[in-house]
């Protein structure tokens, strides 16, 4: 299929024109991407900018004096606080600027990474997977034009995001939020976004499937977050391996270290270049791995509804368990640093002695388990979204015109979503339990952690229930299934800083789970959450049995 012109020795003089050919059509494709994302892109940029700006705007009301600010800073004398937010620069003079740098930068960097990954995959691998890229490539479009256009658009989006931060924040006229610090902050956020753009540019070459490409790049965001948490609590080395860590190490508003910004820049260039090189080693539509022949006949297990659903989700489930298990292992390995941290801190020990009850280790573990639970929730939602895409792609249609009832079809996917969600959560808990158990030399802790992980399972099931209810009632709006998780994330990242009222906390299912091992176990929330999930599932399946099947 491919023309072999590339094999012909090229005279040095026309090298530039050959390079130009590989990029032919890039400008058109850029305009095309901007046209397709004329709503999506501004919404992302506005939402991310608003997150920072509105948080900053609320500071004067919430933290009017130095006393309140320093009280807030005291939170980051704890390992849990540091693991959650940032390395804690400028805590001794906790200005509004330092607050932004400590508590917002990491969060917005994650979101910028998410935006970059989703957009880049959407305009590269998704286009190839659906076969649309083939149609476009048949025109006067160079080999590298698709990737180049996507990288340029997504990269520019990150630069615009940085610029918006750099300009809007100081314009608010808040004390200590100056132009210099804001420029550093904007640049550091853009830097993180750029690195994840580069990572996605590589992952889209590796796999044939857009879902897997997003998953790999998304896992990189998770790894980056875990690395900086581990590094910030421990000896700092790991933080320097993380793009999110880099954005915090820029020390915006405290004492800006501009040279740190070189790291994301260099990393982005290297990653994007890798992406381009890899893309020349594969055919349009395929990944780097060629697919091999498989069995000519189905095993008896595959041809049961549940066996088939398991087969569809098997790869994702496996990777999620491995990834979350590693996530848990990393967090557990910080435990000895946490102990060291507490031992070094006399004030903290005194405070703990006064309070009694939960140890700092326990509350750190409880916080880690809640983070693991929030991330594990993603699997269940993705599983139900997968079910929806089975329907829209027309693959469910031939199955449902066999003797397979809709309830059994949905049920088999639900079993995988619920059981798989629990398995992912347990894998994460197991990872944490192993390293924490060894570090603390206490097998009982391992048991406590697994119990804590189990207790969160009904809370993450709520999102599965919501997803299936939406799937049944308003299938087009399946994206709304993320609402509970996004809300819980915002709450855990910003709720404390913005001092959300109690009722807002109560809206998140995760807030109702007893924070084991720091708190006592209570059965009521577990039962209630499970009952709500069951109700949502009943509604979803019943509605699905009554509605039309839709295909694209």
């Amino acid at each position, binding site marked *: 299929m491919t023309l072999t012109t590339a094999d012909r020795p090229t005279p040095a003089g026309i090298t530039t024109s050959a390079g130009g050919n590989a990029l032919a059509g890039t400008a058109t494709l850029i305009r095309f991407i901007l046209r397709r994302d004329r709503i999506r892109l501004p919404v992302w940029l506005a939402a991310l900018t608003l997150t920072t700006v509105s948080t900053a705007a609320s500071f004067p009301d919430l933290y009017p004096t130095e006393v309140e600010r320093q009280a807030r800073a005291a939170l980051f004398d704890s390992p849990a606080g540091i693991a959650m937010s940032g390395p804690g620069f400028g805590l001794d003079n906790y200005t509004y600027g330092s607050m932004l740098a400590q508590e917002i930068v990491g969060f917005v960097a994650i979101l910028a990474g998410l935006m970059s990954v989703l957009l880049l995959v959407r305009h590269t691998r998704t286009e190839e997977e659906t076969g649309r890229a083939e149609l476009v490539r048949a025109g006067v479009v160079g080999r590298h034009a698709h990737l180049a256009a996507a990288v340029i658009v997504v990269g520019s989006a990150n630069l615009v995001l940085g610029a918006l931060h750099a300009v809007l924040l100081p314009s608010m006229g808040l004390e200590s939020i100056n132009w210099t610090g804001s420029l550093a902050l904007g640049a550091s956020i853009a830097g993180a976004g750029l690195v994840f753009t580069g990572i996605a540019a590589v992952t889209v070459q590796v796999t*044939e*499937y857009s879902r897997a490409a997003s998953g790999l790049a998304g896992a990189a965001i998770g790894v980056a977050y875990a690395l900086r948490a581990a590094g910030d609590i421990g000896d700092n080395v790991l933080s320097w391996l993380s793009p999110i860590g880099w954005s915090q190490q820029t020390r915006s508003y405290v004492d800006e270290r501009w040279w740190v910004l070189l790291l994301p820049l260099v990393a982005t260039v290297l990653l994007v270049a890798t992406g381009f090189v890899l893309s020349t080693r594969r055919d349009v539509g395929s990944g780097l791995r060629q*697919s*091999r*022949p*498989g*069995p*000519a*006949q*189905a095993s008896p297990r*595959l*041809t049961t*509804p549940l066996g*088939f659903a398991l*087969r*569809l989700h098997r*790869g994702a489930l496996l990777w999620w368990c491995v990834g979350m298990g590693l996530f848990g292992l990393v967090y557990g390995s910080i435990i000895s640093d946490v102990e060291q941290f507490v031992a070094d801190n006399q004030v903290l020990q005194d405070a703990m002695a006064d309070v009694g009850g939960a140890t700092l280790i326990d509350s750190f573990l409880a916080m880690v388990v809640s983070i693991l639970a929030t991330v594990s929730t993603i699997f269940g939602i993705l599983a139900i979204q997968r079910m929806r895409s089975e329907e829209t*792609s*027309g*693959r469910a*249609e*031939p*199955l*449902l*015109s*066999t*003797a*397979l*009832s809709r309830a059994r079809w949905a049920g088999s996917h639900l079993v995988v979503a619920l059981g798989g969600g629990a398995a992912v959560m347990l894998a994460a808990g197991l990872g944490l339990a192993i390293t924490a158990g060894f570090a603390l030399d206490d097998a009982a802790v391992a048991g406590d952690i697994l119990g804590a992980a189990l207790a969160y399972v009904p809370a993450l099931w709520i999102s599965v229930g919501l997803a299936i209810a939406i799937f049944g009632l308003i299938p087009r709006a399946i994206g709304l299934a993320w609402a509970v998780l996004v809300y819980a994330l915002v709450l855990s990242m910003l709720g404390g800083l913005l001092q959300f009222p109690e009722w807002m906390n109560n809206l998140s299912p995760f807030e109702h789970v007893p924070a084991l091992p720091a708190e006592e176990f209570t059965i009521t929330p577990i039962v209630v959450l499970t009952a709500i999930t069951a109700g949502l599932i009943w509604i979803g399946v019943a509605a699905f049995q*009554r*509605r*039309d*099947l839709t295909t694209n």
Partner: protein
Amino acid sequence: MTPAIDVKGLVKTFGPVRALDGLDLSVATGEVHGFLGPNGAGKSTTIRVLLGLLRADSGRASVLGGDPWHDAVELHRRLAYVPGDVNLWPNLTGGEAIDLLGRLRGGLDPRRRADLLERFALDPTKKGRTYSKGNRQKVALVAGLASDVELLVLDEPTSGLDPLMEAVFTECISEFMADGRTVLLSSHILAEVEKLCDRVSIIRAGRVVESGTLDDLRHLTRTSVTAVTEQPPTGLADVAGVHDVSLDGNRVEFEVDTDHMDAAIRELSQLGVRSLISHPPTLEELFLRHYGDEIQPGDANDGAKVEQAGGQA
């Protein structure tokens, strides 16, 4: 005997679009019924209603004596469906997909499966993504034809197949029919319907506009005649029931209503016939008669359209 498929006044709307607008369809047990219409006429929507994948807004439908919505699972054991646009699971091989669909229906005959794989020259070990469109279609065809069912519902089943494979398909349908089973074959390929079908329903804009055996439908249409005569056949245009006369010296082409055939031939024979070709209209021509108003100006059959419009006035 109850008809295999019996539909009365089926209506299905998607928002403002009325996809089915009072559709009637009857398919007798033991026949191959052609379901013919242009793209977007409502063929696939009808089939999806018959499979219980869509719920009709109003009207009555019965498949193998049952209600397609309420008795879906029971009915699906007795029928097989081949969609026109087959989308396979990327990480399953074609063989696995065939077995999955077959066993979920209640099992398939392994001998027939092997036989069909061979006849369609399909490699069952390839993964879903690596199949071409035609090969994906073959996967669905093998899964459908290898199962032991009373009714086969085929939605443009040969799209993407090469002529050789189309011939294999025709052969397979004939074998399938040998056991007195029923086929509903939706298509816009007229030759295929002509070759296979006992009866045909023509659907347009959500309604069946005509239904009957091919002979019934031919009865409603004109016959095409090409003749060469000794004297120039100038008077032919005045004969009642003769249309679209085109003269080229002593050669004439025209169409004639079936009940005026006799008069036209009489007229010709007075002129001294040297050669005469007459052929029944192909389904292509039947089709054009029903959808003639959709043909763009400048088309070769434009004259027919004008003629028809004049006839109606």
